Structure formats: structure tokens, C-alpha cells
């Protein structure tokens, strides 16, 4: 039993490795993360309104009930994605999440500075392949690079009071996302 401290030390070190690797593997192993939950309810590359959360049911925990929300579950494997979201009267935001729920970009109506939030979403490879002259004409096009091929775009419109919820919902209903058709010029 003289070796007991040594065995314990070994167990502690191994335990630390087990702990770190399980934490790091969790996002890949999760089956109840936001993307998996939405994958069951939404088609790909299309803006779909989300049912508002209530006490009986909510798609995700900690959703803000003051907001109307819609989601575009994207897949960039067939090309870059165009997003167009009209802004509502109160406050509108668009947040981009990777496949593993990391919010890598978010913009609101004021930062967009227009009547609609218009963006092009693409993978770094697709961005690199863009013709240079197109890059110049695209000066006023906002280009976002997605770290993952699939992910989520969540559009949110605030209803400052409950009576404004219909308005917020109808403004989101005008939002579109879709894969760009490759036009040869």
C-alpha cells in the first residue's frame, strides 16, 4: 500500500484529462443543442417564423418573449446565401450562429442603417473565390464569412408592448434567405 499516493496522483491526472476532453467534446456530441432542435422543425435555407415561447412550450430555453423570432437554417455547401430582412418600427436584429451555437456575428437595424438588413453569407473559401471586380462593385454589400458550412441565422423583432407583436411578426414575415444563383456575366 506504499504505492497508494502514486495511484491516486495518476487517477487525478487521468481524471483531469477525462474532464477536459468531455467538456471539449460536448458541443459535437450534443443532440439537444439549438441546431438539432431547429433541424426537426425547419427546412434548409428558408426563413421560418418560430412559435413564441410560452409557459407550456418553447423551442429553446431562455427565449425573450418580447420578441418575434424567425430562423434561417443555412447550408452553404451549394453556394453563398443572400439574406434580406426588413426592419420593424421598434428594433430588429440578426444574429449568426455556427453549427455549434457560437454567435459569430450580430447586427441590428441601426448598425445596418437602412430600411432593410441585407447581407451575403459565405464560407471563407467562397469569399476567396469571388472575382475581384465583383468585390469592388460589392463595396456596399455586407459580406459575412461563416466559420462553419451549416448554421443558424436568427432574426428578432421587438414588440415594445404585447399589442405590437403582430406588427413585429409581419415585418419578419417579409424576410428572405436563399442560395444565390450563380450568374455568369
Amino acid at each position, binding site marked *: 500500500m506504499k504505492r497508494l499516493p502514486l495511484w491516486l496522483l*495518476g487517477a487525478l491526472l487521468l481524471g483531469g484529462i477525462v474532464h477536459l476532453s468531455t*467538456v471539449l467534446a460536448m458541443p459535437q456530441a450534443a443532440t439537444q443543442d439549438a441546431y438539432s432542435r431547429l433541424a426537426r422543425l425547419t427546412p434548409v435555407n428558408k426563413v421560418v417564423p418560430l412559435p413564441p415561447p410560452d*409557459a407550456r412550450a418553447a423551442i429553446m430555453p431562455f427565449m425573450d418573449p418580447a420578441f418575434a423570432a424567425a430562423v434561417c437554417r443555412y447550408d452553404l455547401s451549394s453556394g453563398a446565401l443572400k439574406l434580406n430582412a426588413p426592419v420593424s418600427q421598434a428594433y430588429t436584429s440578426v444574429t449568426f450562429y455556427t453549427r455549434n451555437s457560437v*454567435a459569430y456575428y*450580430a447586427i441590428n437595424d441601426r448598425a445596418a442603417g437602412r430600411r432593410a438588413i441585407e447581407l451575403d453569407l459565405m464560407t471563407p473559401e467562397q469569399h476567396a473565390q469571388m472575382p475581384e471586380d465583383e468585390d469592388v462593385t460589392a463595396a456596399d454589400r455586407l459580406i459575412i464569412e461563416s466559420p462553419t458550412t451549416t448554421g443558424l441565422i436568427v432574426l428578432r423583432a421587438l*414588440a415594445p408592448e404585447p399589442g405590437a407583436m403582430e406588427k413585429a411578426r409581419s415585418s419578419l414575415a417579409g424576410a428572405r434567405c436563399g442560395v444565390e444563383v450563380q450568374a455568369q456575366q
Partner: protein
Amino acid sequence: MRLFVGSCFTLLLAAAIGLGATWLTLSHGIAFGSLTIGAWTAWPKNGSVDIDPYARATIARTGELPIGAGDGLAFYAHTDDAGNTFDGRCTFTISGMTPAARYWTVTLYDPEGRLVANKIDRHGFTSAEIVRDSSGRFAINVGPRARPGNWLPTGGVEQFVLVWRLYDTPIGLASLTSKEGPMPAIVRKGCS
């Protein structure tokens, strides 16, 4: 024989330590880089690519989508200013100042992030709809029984969480070190 027993013992203990630590940290929602003001705590990095591995694992497990840093910032409170855990059978008042933001919302959830059922279907307030006094200040009564003014019903649940979300706010990563504030004060008034 001794070697075999020792290895088995070590491996089992390692698995227990490792998985136990993972379960503990994830169920307690450990994350780094928090910003605490009074009873309120926010994790500004959770809304960006700088989110730490523990927070990543936590949101993967809960299914939550954190609010993006360019959108806003969410402050969570589990206790009042004195450290009393939020009990739905007690009455709390929230009053005071809020940091600069275009809009804010305050929402009451159960600890799992679900809205709490109540008779008037009220789960929170927005900065636009809250009733203020002539000087622009507000007070919110959080409790099981109806109150005049801004009443946020708890539905009598055993435990609840308040989330204060600031939208289009200058507070965030850049101001982590500076003394921010103020956030509304939370005081327990009594329990039934």
C-alpha cells in the same frame, strides 16, 4: 495482481473524477469573464467567438442560443442584493437605474429557462411598456400575489431566475474592466 487492482482502481477513480467534474461545472454553468453588477451577472464573451469551452459545452447541453454581442447583453440574477435566493412565494421589488440601452426587457424564468405559467400571462416587461413615476423611475413588484403598478407574477414557483436584457447597448467587451452600472437594485419584501 497488485498492479491489476491498482490500475483498475486508478482508471475507475479517474473516470469518476473526470465525469464528476464535467457534470458539476456544466450543471453550475461555469463560465469565465463575467461582469457582475449588484445581483446581476453577464458573460459578454458568450455572445462572440471568444466564448470559452465551458460556456460552449453548457449551451450545447441546454439548447440555448446566447444573445449576440452586436445585438445586446443579458444579465442573470438568481438572488436579491442581500443574497436571498429567488423564491416564488416571496415578494421582491426591483427599482433603480438601468445602463444605457435603446431598449431593455426583464423576464422571469424557472431555473431551466422556461416561462412560468400565471393567470395574467405576464412573463416580463419591456422598457417601453413599464409604468414609470413622474421622474421617470420605475419599480417592479415580483411576487405571487397581484400588486398595483408593475406586477411580475412568480406563479408561486419554488425558484426563479430574472434575466435583464439590454439591446443596442455600448456595454460589452470593451467596458469589461471599467466600472459599469448601475443595474436595478433587488430587495426582498417578505414571504407568504
